[in-house]
């Protein structure tokens, strides 16, 4: 065991959060991270020394997700998982843990692109341009995704109303790369 800080180990929690936000399934998220690390090892020549390690890992993870995601079966599985996320009744939050769990649910039923954008910007603290580059969309598009995701979460908070699960027709727009 080394005591030296390991740059990749440091990125693992962020990678796992990203994988979870993409796949919404903990088991699948673990598989995604594992596969991304292996793929990174195979393609490590593509990483420029001194480059942005986190961005590089995130984009590998994203590609792994997109590759796996081309199958309709994964799509269906995720829709079922999302249905399980959506609670039947949202009670008034009694304590903080419960409220966080509900917020997490509200986050998980955001549309794919908004969920990804909000996670990377608000939780991982990437810049707009980093996320836009990662998702392969213009910065303006990315900014409006973040704005829409925020608006939905505010709705969830104010209404206390149950956020409407979206029909995930077609899911992620993989062609928009």
């Amino acid at each position, binding site marked *: 065991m080394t005591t030296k800080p390991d740059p*990749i180990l440091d990125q693992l929690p962020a990678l796992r959060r990203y994988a979870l936000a993409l796949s919404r399934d903990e088991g699948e998220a673990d598989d995604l991270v594992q596969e991304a690390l292996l793929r990174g090892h195979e393609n490590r020549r593509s990483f420029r020394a001194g480059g942005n390690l986190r961005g590089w890992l995130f984009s590998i993870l994203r590609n792994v997700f997109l590759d796996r995601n081309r199958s309709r079966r994964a799509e269906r599985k995720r829709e079922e998982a999302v249905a399980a996320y959506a609670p039947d009744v949202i009670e008034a939050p009694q304590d903080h843990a419960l*409220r*966080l769990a509900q917020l997490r649910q509200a986050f998980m039923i955001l549309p794919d692109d908004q969920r990804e954008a909000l996670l990377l910007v608000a939780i991982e603290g990437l810049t707009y341009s980093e996320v836009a580059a990662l998702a392969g969309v213009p910065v303006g598009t990315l900014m409006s995704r973040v704005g829409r995701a925020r608006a939905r979460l505010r709705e969830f908070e104010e209404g206390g109303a149950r956020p409407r699960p979206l029909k995930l027709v077609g899911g992620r727009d993989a062609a928009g790369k």
Partner: protein
Amino acid sequence: MQPASDAISELDLNAYVDDQLDDWQRLRVEEYLSHQPEAAARVMQDLHLRRELRLAFAPGRDTPGTQRAAATRLSRALRRDQRLRGVIRLVPVAALVLAGWLANEGLGPLSVGRVVASQPPHPVIAAALSAREASIIRLPMRSQPQIHELDPAELRAATGILLPRFDRAWEIRDAQVFPSPQGPGIEIVFDAGELGRLTHFAVRTGSFAVTLPHLETHRGDNVAWFQIGETAHVLISDRGDGAALLKVAENLSSTLY
């Protein structure tokens, strides 16, 4: 002073929450918010949501060991590659000389003949001599830090060439990898005490042979070389006597078996 409030948009507020603004832009937004209670409340709410989201996504489960192992393996490999890049620079001069020679001479098997000084040297040796000249000219010009250790495993991973075990007393002055039609070769320059500046040159010959070490003299330098498998090893020294160099070559070749 009237703030330019009208210039603040929804996007600016979002960017403020997302911490994407520089200090001047933040000032402008805060100025605006101080006059706009509703917008300010919304921004506070967004900031609050953001903090809650971060808490909601705090790592709940421990990272699986397989992921940790894969992560460690990846960072090791990256570190190794980086060190390797530090040690190795591609040197076009040596590459051109070598590729030219090999192409020119054809790639027949190395024949073990008596080499008389008047004969032109073997192409591998000629390439080694030229590369050595280039590197000796370059050495004083190097602004890079000196390398003090070589990792044979790394070099082998990068080039597929197995290096002999060098005398630990030798000081490495320079190391390079250069391409050739048969795959990369390695040149390492040592300061080797009595033998003076010693260059070890491992190059692929494109043919399989086992040649025992033997000695030649070219332009006042002693050259000892041997071949094991596809790789020829050429040692060139500018001081010391030939017998000593031949002994070194024999010792080195024995570490390869």
